[in-house]
Structures are given as C-alpha cells and as structure tokens.
C-alpha cells in the first residue's frame, strides 16, 4: 500500500521543524503544506479540532497532533532507519524528561521577549537560565543523546533559528552566555535533515520585525 504522509506546517515554527527533521532522518517522502496561521485551512481545523495548531502529521488519512508525539510516532512506525529515541527504558525516560522540560520552559519564556511589551528583560534573563540548564545537561557530549543525534536534539534545535530574534529584542547575546550550546547547534546544522528543516535566522528575524509592526509593537 502506498504510504500517504502529509505535514500541515508553518515555515517559522520551531515545532514544525521538529517533525520535518524526524521525517527527513527516516527518509520519509511527504507532502509539505504551508498553513496561513491567520487564515487556517479547513483541513487543519478538521484534523486538529482540539488545538487548531500546526504541525499536524496526517498518515494515511489519520492525524497525529503535537510535535513530540509525532516524533515518537514516526520512530515507532518507521523503526528501521536512524532510531530517534533510545531503546533502554531509563535512557528513554531521561530523553522524554528533557524534551518535556524544553516544551514547558523554552517557548513560554522566549515568546515574552518579542511578543510582549515590558517583560523583555525579565524574560531574557529567564531564557538564559533555561538555556544554561540545558547546556549543563549537554555537558561535553556531542549531542544530548550522547553520540547519537536524537529526540532531545530534535526537540531543541529549531529554537536556534530564533536565537537572533531573542538576542535582538531581549538585548542578550546567547552565543556568549551559552557557547557550548551554540557549538552543539552548529554540529546539528551539519546534518542534512536539520539544515533543510531550519530556515535562515535572518528570515525569521525579518518576519518577527514585520509581525511586531502589524501588532503595533513598533
């Protein structure tokens, strides 16, 4: 049976980037569909009625929502190439803990840097703390998964394309605060799956600048 894989996504979404990377790691051919977040398609609303958000992975007509859940699903459906999660239960739990940490902490704080007026300084301090915690967890490993690129790396790497945005509006310098994390991001970008999934930072910075103007922040 021919596999039909569709990804409803938005080019700048660090969550969508996760799923793009996972699919690329597994060499899965898929139909990428760009969504206009200000004019969501009826397919998106039908496939994710609960959250109405991207990314949505549609596999043979059935939707899987939430990017981390999509990575696990992709790893389970196509187990042969490039395991994304460790097989040992404790290592799996460790990976899930850190991906959950990323989900709970990074975006919520980072958003306040560019999307809210008056909270930039506090939010950028908090973000640096969060990134330092992650840098500490990375230690001197090549990837969060040690020698193998995997789940936690995929969960975090998309945010690196937004670092320029956080630096600009948060008046920080992530590279000087977290040099090991930046080195890790560069290593990840050497992988084809990551290089193809992440937009250029400048493109995101321009997009946010225009969005802030539209929202009346500038």
């Amino acid at each position, binding site marked *: 049976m021919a596999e039909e894989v569709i990804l409803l996504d938005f080019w700048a979404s660090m969550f969508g980037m996760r799923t793009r990377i996972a699919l690329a790691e597994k060499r899965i051919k898929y139909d990428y569909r760009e969504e206009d977040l200000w004019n969501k398609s009826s397919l998106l609303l039908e496939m994710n009625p609960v959250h109405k958000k991207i990314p949505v992975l549609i596999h043979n007509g059935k939707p899987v929502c939430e990017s981390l*859940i999509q990575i696990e699903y992709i790893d389970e459906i196509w187990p042969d190439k490039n395991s994304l999660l460790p097989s040992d239960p*404790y290592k799996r739990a*460790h990976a899930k803990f850190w991906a959950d940490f990323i989900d709970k902490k990074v975006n919520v704080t980072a958003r306040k840097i560019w999307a809210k007026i008056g909270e930039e300084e506090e939010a950028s301090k908090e973000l640096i703390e969060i990134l330092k915690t992650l840098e500490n967890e990375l230690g001197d490993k090549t990837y969060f998964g040690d020698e193998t690129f995997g789940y936690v790396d995929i969960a975090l790497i998309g945010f690196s394309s937004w670092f320029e945005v956080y630096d600009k509006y948060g008046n920080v310098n992530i590279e000087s605060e977290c040099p090991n994390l930046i080195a890790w991001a560069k290593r990840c970008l050497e992988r084809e799956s990551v290089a193809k999934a992440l937009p250029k930072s400048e493109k995101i910075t321009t997009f946010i600048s225009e969005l802030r103007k539209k929202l009346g922040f500038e």
Partner: protein
Amino acid sequence: MAERSEEVKLLGMWASPFSRRIEIALTIKGVPYEFSEQDITNKSALLLQLNPVHKMIPVLVHHGKPISESLVILEYIDDTWQNNPILPQDPYEKAMARFWAKFIDEQICVAAMKVVGKTGEEKDAAVEATRDLLKFLEKELVGKDFFGGKNLGFVDIVATLIAFWVMRTEEIVGVKVVPVEIFPEIHRWVKNLLANDVIKKCIPPEDEHLRYIKDRMVKLIIKPA
C-alpha cells in the same frame, strides 16, 4: 544486594493526583514499592537532590536512579514492566493516548484550577472554558467502558485527576463543573472506575481528602494579595 537494586521507591504526596496516578500504575503492574510521603511545603533534601530541576513530586527511584514528571514515569513503568500494558500497542492508538493525557494535564487541569477562588462572571467564564475542553473527552468515551476501551489504560489513569479531584471538589468550589446532564459519559466512566479494585485501593479516602482540600483552599484564598 540484588534485592536492594530492584527496590522501587516513590516520593509522593497522598493528596496529589500526579502522585496517585503512579501508585495506580505500579499496582496494576503488581510492582512492590516503598512510598515516601513528602511535605511539599517543606521539601526534603532527598527530593531536592532527586529532582533538582523541578523540585516536585512524584519522583520514582528505580535501581537507585530517579525519574521525574508523572507522564514520563508512567511510560517508564510501562516500558520496564511489560505485564498488564497501560499504553496501547498500536502506534496510532498510542499517539492518541499520549495526546489525550497531555490535553488533560496541560489544558483541563489548568482550566479547572482557574475556577477555584473566583466569583461571579469570572467564575462562570472559567467553568464554561473547562466544560468546553471536557466535551472533547465526553465524545471520546462514547461506546467505551474506559478511555482505554474494555480495560483501564493510560488515559484513564491520567484522567483520575478529573474524577477524583475536579469532580470531588465541586461542592467545595461551589459549582457543578461536570454536571451529569451535560456529561453523562464521564459520569458513567467514573462509576466504572469506582468498580475497579486498583482504583478503589489507590485513590485518597474521600472524607480525609475533602477536609484537606477545604483546608488548603481556605489558606490559598485568605493569602494576602
């Protein structure tokens, strides 16, 4: 020392839904464990050592290694002890179970907490918002005894938060957030839960639980702004 390395310890709190769900899972699997009651208002050095990132219960310790975050712990338990599976085997069904569990913890739990301590229009709005989310779960239960189908599963374990925390506290909060007229399936599901031996054994005793919640709410509401 082979026996000690199998030792399973759970740092938890008797009135916490997140702690109780771990006890349910361990009981379903027949895994013996040592329960260590934690004072969350005065966190122990052990807790801070085992969960330095979030400093929260529950923490499961197995072979001397700690695991934190209740959903992560539940999956670890299912991966480690393969009898009586909690998650579905089919990858799509598994993805759906994970989706609903996340929805309950991140959306329903947060929305239900917003009802507490509110009055008037604010309260009504918080109740409506919670009900809008619960309607998705109501639909999921149609034609099923449990979210897991014929047997208790991952989503049921997580959703005990709704059955024994959100619904139990309606009298205290002063509003029926989950009335039977709007949520007949959820009420039917709660009856099924209450008929289950593991659930009966693992949920906090009602009277004691309600006393504790009343007491905590009084403390929270009279806290100076």
